[in-house]
């Protein structure tokens, strides 16, 4: 049994691996040179500059914040390289991935028509879907969150329903939305919307319910009501909660888009991954995963930054 599995794995992979060995070493050496060169570059900068104080401080900060991840990353890449370079490995090694995906990395914005476009376009297409779905979720989520945070009857009526619906996995909505919209594009957007909306609703409602009684009393004394109350008191007071909901929401929508696009098709990073799998382009999948991770990280940090700017003054009292 075990020998057949081994044989199969060997028979499927050795051809591409052996054919690219010269390229592999060529692509690998500059990368390792860069990795090795970075720390020494910091060290002299710390001691030689005329504004020694500032330079040394910058150098120290780089040393503290950049050095650990660089070391760990180099180690992990090394382990990956060693594990996957062995004959019979079912996954490509790091250098293998670099050489396989060279075209994709260097040309993120090529366009050969149809689905055959660069990774940049694929990611932008996914981001566009997320932008639509997430924006709708922000508007709907804040509105519903304010409703159930402000009115106890809405809370009692809607909260049990929301608590059940929010546990439904995003992809479970896809067949239903395909049936409803009869079109893949709005269906994908709907899946993003329905995924991102729950944390936004729940956090907004908690934020609204936690508006200090004092602020409400101030508003009542100056007779601040309706829309003006919403803008002047409710939104700023609940902003820290709302932004934590927005941050969870953006993360979830990016999680859902890849899965949704795998099923829906068209241009998009999710379908790119699925397409690569169908063509056995494992290196392309790995590159796409790295891009997906980086974009998700950037999205998360953007919302976090926005939240920090907006709520800078709300949190301290």
């Amino acid at each position, binding site marked *: 049994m075990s020998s057949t599995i081994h044989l199969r794995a060997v028979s499927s992979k050795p051809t591409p691996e052996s054919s690219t060995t010269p390229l592999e070493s060529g692509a690998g050496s500059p990368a390792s040179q860069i990795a090795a060169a970075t720390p020494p570059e910091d060290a002299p900068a710390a001691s030689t500059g005329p504004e020694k104080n500032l330079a040394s401080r910058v150098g120290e900060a780089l040393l503290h914040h950049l050095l650990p991840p660089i070391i760990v990353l180099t180690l992990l890449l090394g382990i990956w390289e060693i594990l996957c370079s062995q004959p019979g490995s079912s996954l490509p090694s790091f250098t293998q991935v670099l050489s396989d995906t060279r075209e994709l990395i260097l040309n993120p914005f090529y366009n050969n028509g149809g689905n055959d476009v660069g990774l940049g376009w694929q990611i932008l297409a996914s981001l566009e879907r997320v932008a639509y779905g997430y924006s709708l979720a922000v508007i709907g989520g804040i509105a519903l969150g304010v409703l159930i945070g402000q009115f106890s009857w809405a809370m009692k009526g809607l909260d049990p329903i929301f608590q059940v619906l929010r546990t439904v996995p995003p992809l479970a909505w896809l067949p239903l939305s395909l049936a409803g919209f009869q079109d893949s594009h709005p269906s994908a957007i709907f899946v993003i919307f329905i995924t991102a909306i729950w944390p936004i609703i729940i956090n907004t409602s908690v934020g609204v319910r936690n508006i200090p009684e004092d602020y409400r009393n101030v508003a009542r*004394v100056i007779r601040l009501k309706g829309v003006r109350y919403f803008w002047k008191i409710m939104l700023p007071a609940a902003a820290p909660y709302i932004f934590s909901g927005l941050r969870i929401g953006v993360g979830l929508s990016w999680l859902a888009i890849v899965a949704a696009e795998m099923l829906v098709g068209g241009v998009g990073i999710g379908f790119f991954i699925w397409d690569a799998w169908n063509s056995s382009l494992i290196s392309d999948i790995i590159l796409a995963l790295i891009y997906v991770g980086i974009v998700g990280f950037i999205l998360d940090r953007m919302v976090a930054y926005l939240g920090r700017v907006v709520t800078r003054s709300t949190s301290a009292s």
Partner: protein
Amino acid sequence: MTASYLQIENVDMTFTKGQKSSNVLRNINLKVERGEFISLIGHSGCGKSTVLNIVAGLLKASGGGVILDGKEVNEPGPDRSVVFQNHSLLPWLTVYENVALAVEEVFGRSKSKAERHDWILKNLELVHMTHALHKRPAEISGGMKQRVGIARALAMEPKVLLLDEPFGALDALTRAKLQDEVMRIQIELQNTVLMITHDVDEAVLLSDRIVMLTNGPSATIGDIISVPLPRPRMRVELVDDPIYLQCRAAALKFLYERHAAPATAMG
């Protein structure tokens, strides 16, 4: 019998929570004349703040009612502005904006933009806070926050100014300074003021009359002391003024002999 400026008539307050109901206030009657400074004093938990909240309209009395300048009070409004114990400034607004928010709501139609701006500055000047117009509450001290709270309340041009233990959270020196400020402003503006306090010296120093509440439950007005001291009052000169001492003794006797805090009372 002529009607007073502010009349609290037969106010009863019962809080009901599920099956439990507790009678907090019973039969509160008080008449306040225009320009009077009244202190409400009593032990913690006796319902002083409840009285103030009913006058403010933030709470609805279970029985009886409040009449201000011939009109019944049934909701909160800027004619009964409140200075809250913990200042209640909005932390995302600057000092100027906190006052501006109130001024814009109250005088948005009756004053022009320039007039509103001048009015905001004038009130902040009154409490000596013009040096920190663009600071946020987190950046100023507790005493300064309370000054801004007072400026915001005054800027509404209230018929009655309601002070809910305004100096309770401040250290003794800051408190004394703010008390002097409030007395100075009172002489200038001649407001009608209702102040909650648990500090006998503060009550005697600031008030024309001290209204003393009995202990709850079912607290009511036990006694009222008039403080016939001329204004302006100087705290140092009053230290051995016989009238001051007499009033202080009467209040202390009421609080610690006739209506000593029940052993079970919570801090």
